[in-house]
């Protein structure tokens, strides 16, 4: 008799353009490819990212980090600055915003300061959605990681890396290894890889870290590393947090490394041309051997570089959508 309201697509505007970037889930192949192509346009021939582009001049981007992060925050900051935006870095002690109301108050304040975009990282799954649902229509929200839910820019840079180094997605087999349960990167990658039509996605780890429900999301699950690695083209290692031992998900780092650590010996099971990726920061000797992390199959440092280009792409696309919305409303206003 009674139906409750369905969730709406928060990320897209009426014309299907990227308004917020919260998750890779639900975005179509065209849009994901557009992000990758835009990122490509920010890459120079020497493999570096363009140093300056005036695309976001006059735009204020607030980096709201409710959870500590160096790498993601820095690359977002670099990306914003290279697009000529002004950047506010705000690190927020989560304990002071444990109540929802405080979080909303903070958003209102930042809006009042004239922020045009929020780059948000938060320990709660769904936090970016929560914020995107409540900001004024002029503000775009970019998810820089929410709980275990999504880390879409990391996934996009991983997809960019795969496309750059391995070509089209269709024939590829991609393995994601380690702590899938807690990984927002794995979730965002899974959706992105599926949409882009990758041949096969494998998740590898012990049952405590790889929930069987991931099968329903279109992945094949392997509990034995050697079997899962067989003939894969891309190996994505995830960072193992020390807390996993305390919460009885694993017996020890040593045992994890023995079973799921990527050593040269293990890598031999993969396709001879397989590349090795890691979202960083890496734990040498815990999930990956130094020789592999630094070896010629590793593209881990390339990922960092691409991360800047991908974030520039996402920021400029969301800004563009926003600008179109603003000019549609106020024809006289062409600047931020």
């Amino acid at each position, binding site marked *: *008799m009674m*139906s409750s*309201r369905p969730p*709406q697509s928060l990320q897209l505007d009426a014309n299907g353009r990227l308004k917020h970037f919260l998750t890779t*889930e639900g975005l179509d192949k065209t849009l994901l490819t557009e992000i990758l192509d835009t990122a490509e346009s920010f890459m120079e021939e020497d493999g570096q990212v363009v140093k300056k582009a005036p695309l976001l001049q006059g735009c204020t981007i607030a980096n709201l980090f409710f959870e500590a992060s160096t790498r993601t925050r820095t690359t977002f900051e670099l990306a914003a600055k290279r697009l000529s935006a002004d950047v506010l870095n705000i690190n927020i002690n989560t304990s002071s915003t444990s109540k929802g109301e405080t979080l909303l108050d903070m958003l209102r304040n930042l809006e009042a300061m004239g922020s045009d975009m929020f780059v948000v990282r938060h320990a709660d799954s769904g936090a970016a*959605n929560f914020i995107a649902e409540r900001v004024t229509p002029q503000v775009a929200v970019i998810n820089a990681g929410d709980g*275990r839910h999504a880390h879409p820019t990391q996934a996009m840079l991983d997809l960019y890396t795969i496309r750059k180094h391995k070509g089209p997605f269709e024939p590829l087999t991609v393995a994601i290894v380690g702590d899938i349960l807690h990984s927002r990167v794995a979730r965002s990658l899974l959706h992105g890889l599926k949409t882009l039509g990758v041949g096969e996605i494998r998740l590898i780890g012990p049952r405590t870290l790889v929930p069987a429900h991931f099968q329903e999301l279109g992945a094949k699950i392997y509990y034995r590393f050697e079997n899962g690695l067989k003939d894969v083209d891309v190996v994505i290692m995830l960072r193992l947090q020390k807390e996993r031992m305390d919460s009885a998900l694993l017996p020890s780092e040593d045992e994890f490394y023995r079973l799921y650590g990527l050593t040269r010996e293990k890598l031999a099971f993969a396709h001879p041309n397989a590349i090795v990726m890691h979202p960083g920061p890496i734990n040498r000797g815990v999930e990956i051997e130094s020789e592999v992390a630094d070896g010629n199959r590793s593209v881990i440092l390339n990922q960092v570089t691409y991360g800047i280009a991908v974030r520039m792409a996402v920021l400029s696309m969301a800004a563009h959508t926003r600008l179109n919305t603003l000019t549609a409303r106020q024809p006289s206003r062409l600047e931020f």
Partner: protein
Amino acid sequence: MAVSSTKKRIVIRGGRLVDPAQKLDLVTDIYIADGIVLSIGQRPVGFSDDEIIHAEGALVIPGAVDLCAHLREPGSETRGTIYSETRAAAAAGITHIVCTPDTTPVVDSAAIANLIQERAWQTGYCHVYPIGALTRGLEGQQLSEMYALRESGCIGFSQMRMPVRNHRVLLRCLEYAATFDLTVFFQSVDTGLAGNGCAHAGPTATRLGLTGIPSAAETIALSRDLLLVEHTGVRAHFGQLSCARSVELIADAQARGLRVTADVAAHQLFLTDTMMDGFNSVYHVNPPLRTEADRLGLIEGVRSGIITAICSDHQPHEAAAKAAPFAASAPGISAFSTYLPLSYDLVRNGTLSVADWVRRISLHPAQIIGLEAGSVRIGDEANLTVFAPDERWILTDETLFSLGANSPWFGTEIEGRVRATLHDGRISFRL
């Protein structure tokens, strides 16, 4: 503010009285004077009414007896007060409420039990029966003064979802309750397995990255509790089941002859975990919304009678409590308003007869707490509800009397409306 204390002479005209306790199902008039049902059908000689309640086209049923509601007072009056929530209950067709002991302070002393009942009596919208805490402060370590609490009106005892870590303590609690034939209300959960989860451990939670609560958190604790109930012979009621497997465990216990009853919250019969998609915190409830298979299993349990009662599990919250990312929001639904309309859907879809529906929301819950209620008998005080199953309305601030607007159906059209409620012969709600 309170219900007028004057007991008028009331006639309820032309409604379909469905009273399974008396095997009544007929369109009739009901005459009430001095709070007492004087006559059903025949106008008493010399009866002149002060008030006519038109029940044409509606059902007249014994007032609903809700086995689980959080009234929030004392301690959390920003979320609800006895006044606001009993008034909301009356507007929802409820005449008897069983309220939970997890207030601040906890209902572990006669003083708190008395306070709640006095407040309820002063406001006069509903009969309110507190459940006492099974252990002092709900801390799971010492027995509460169950006998004194029983004398002060507590109709049963519960640990809610707080752990009793030492099973010896739990065993002693049940033995002590059994000594005085007290009913223990279980909300079975293994707090270790539930952990800091906020959603059913299924595909949706996995995809959204929400920490899961496995079904085993309920079924393992339920199995343990049933074994202890069997061991002690205590009378037990299992509230707010969420898993299909739990229904089988209860059926098994009943088949073994245990004195065990169970209820389910109305919303568990309609919502599943897939509705969390989009992170709408209004679907954050505890126990969590589970799978379609669980939902169907619970409905079958209600149909077959293994689940004897449907409750509201009313949990009002202030807006700020839900204005947070899913896991950080407070669990619970403000559920009085939709209690009858939702549960009546089981009649609409042919799962229950009207009489069986009345049994699940009124007669059986009354029997579970040992009340002579759940029937509209001549000579008894009139506790009844006029419910129009086909009438549509919208749940808005104007139609919501609870302080909590945390309902998935807030702002939507609802089918089935309470036209009037009589509490001990006084009109506690009228459209």
